[in-house]
Structures are given as C-alpha cells and as structure tokens.
C-alpha cells in the first residue's frame, strides 16, 4: 500500500493468489510449523476421524493470508490480525487472498484502518474471513 496517501473505504489493498494445495506442501508445513497433527498428512488417520482425505492446516491458509497482507502493509504497521476458519480447505484448493478497507479509525492519536480479509477458493467459497487493524 502506498504510504504517501490514505486509502479509502472500499478500496482493495490486498490481493494475492496461491498455487494449488498439495500433499507435499502439507507435509512441509507440518514440519515447518510444528503442527504435527496427523489429520493433515496421514490419510489413514483422517479417514478414521471421519474425513474423506487429509486437508489443509487452517494456519497454512492464515499464513498465506498474512503473506498477502505483508506484501501490501509493512509488518510493523500491523496492530492485530484475526480470522475465523469458515470451511475446511481441501487438497487442490487454489486460494485467492484479498483485503478491502472496511473502516478508517483513530486510536490514541494513531491513524489506522480496519481491513476486511478473506481467503477464498477457486469457486469463490470463503475459507477464512477475518480482519487486520493497521497503522497508516
């Protein structure tokens, strides 16, 4: 995001697309994140738990949403970042991460924006919905 002008409400300031989610990436994320829950990498475990296959860590999707966010906003400007995991993200999902300015606010003299964030699949289904408060 340009630091020389203030964004306007409704403006899309975050946009990034990501490659399809593969078993390989889930295996790498398992090790990289320390989240060794077998439900994301072991199809036998996933089936025994009632799922047709392994599925993505929600935090992998949130990490990509965060990546899209800090492509646009310097990390030190982010005051908070939160998401709701609305739906399971399956193998093969191609995510699009977006953020729109929802509100311009001020907190203790600091000008801030509230960004509405989504991570959606190739059919437009929202997988993660959240927000970030950023300093302008």
């Amino acid at each position, binding site marked *: 995001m340009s630091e020389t002008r203030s964004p306007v409400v409704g403006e899309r300031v975050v946009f990034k697309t990501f*490659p399809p989610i593969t078993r390989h990436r889930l295996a790498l994320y398992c090790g*990289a994140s*320390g*989240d060794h829950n077998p439900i994301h990498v072991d199809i036998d475990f996933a089936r025994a738990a009632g799922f047709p296959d392994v599925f993505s860590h929600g*935090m992998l999707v949130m990490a990509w949403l*965060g990546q899209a966010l800090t492509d646009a906003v310097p*990390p030190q400007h982010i005051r*908070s*970042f939160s998401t709701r995991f609305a739906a399971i993200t399956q193998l093969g999902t191609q995510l699009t991460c977006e953020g729109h300015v929802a509100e311009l606010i001020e907190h203790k003299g600091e000008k801030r924006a509230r960004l509405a964030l989504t991570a959606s699949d190739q059919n437009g289904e929202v997988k993660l919905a959240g927000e970030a408060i950023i300093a302008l």
Partner: protein
Amino acid sequence: MVDQSAVGRPLAPVTARVEPGRLRFFFDTLGEQNPVYRNDEAARAAGYAATPVPPTYLFCLEMLDNQNPFGFLAELGIDLARVLHGEQRFAYHAPVLVGDTLTFCSQVTSVADKKGGAMTMVVVETEITNQHGVHVAGTARTIVVRN
C-alpha cells in the same frame, strides 16, 4: 468431555527461540519472497534491528518448542482427531526478531457448547514476552471439538 471446570486452567509455559534456519524453512514452505523477512539489509532499511517474524509465526513457535504440543488436549479429555481450528487472533505490541527468545503463558479462558452440544468451543489465550521482559504479543485460539 471438557467442561466449565477447565476455565482458568493454565497450560505449561513454553520457551521458544526464533531460529533463522527453521524460519527459513517456514518461508520456503510458503513461497515467501518478501525481502524484509529474508534479507538483513532490507530489514534494517525498514527499521528493524534484525529480520522480523511473519504475522502467524508466533503460533508455530509455541508448537515447535513445546515438548508435548497436544498434551493439554489430552489433559482436558479432548481427542486430537475430534479437533478443528475455529478462530485465531493475534495482537501485536512490539516486534519479534530472529534471535529472540520468547515465553508463552497460556490459559483456557472460555468453554462453550454449541449446536445443542454437538460442538464445544474452547478458547485458549496466550501472552508472549521476550528475553527483555517486553510483552510483544497476545494470541487467542478457538478450538472446536466435534462431540
């Protein structure tokens, strides 16, 4: 089954170090190319003393250096196979940089049944301080238990 008696229960504290090698593995896994994370000079130009961690990595650090990251679920009588992640929140108060050593202090702050008891939502809140005693961040995660 987890119930209200869990509210206020502390989890074992975790101490975690921000190690450059495993942070690089995290970036490689996610295709992260932003120079502010990967290049010391870019980080310094952005005003950091060293390269910073990305927004969700605090969640990872707590698991990476936890001797038994799912132990608290077992202690609460929750089966790992029945767990989904419902919500995740981060509040950032000060930068977290490569080389920092962080302490994570967590407790269960809420337990609520949903959909007539078909699901239970458990909230765990965590306060994170660095090696200088600076309160760098707070997090909250909501765990959904499929009953």
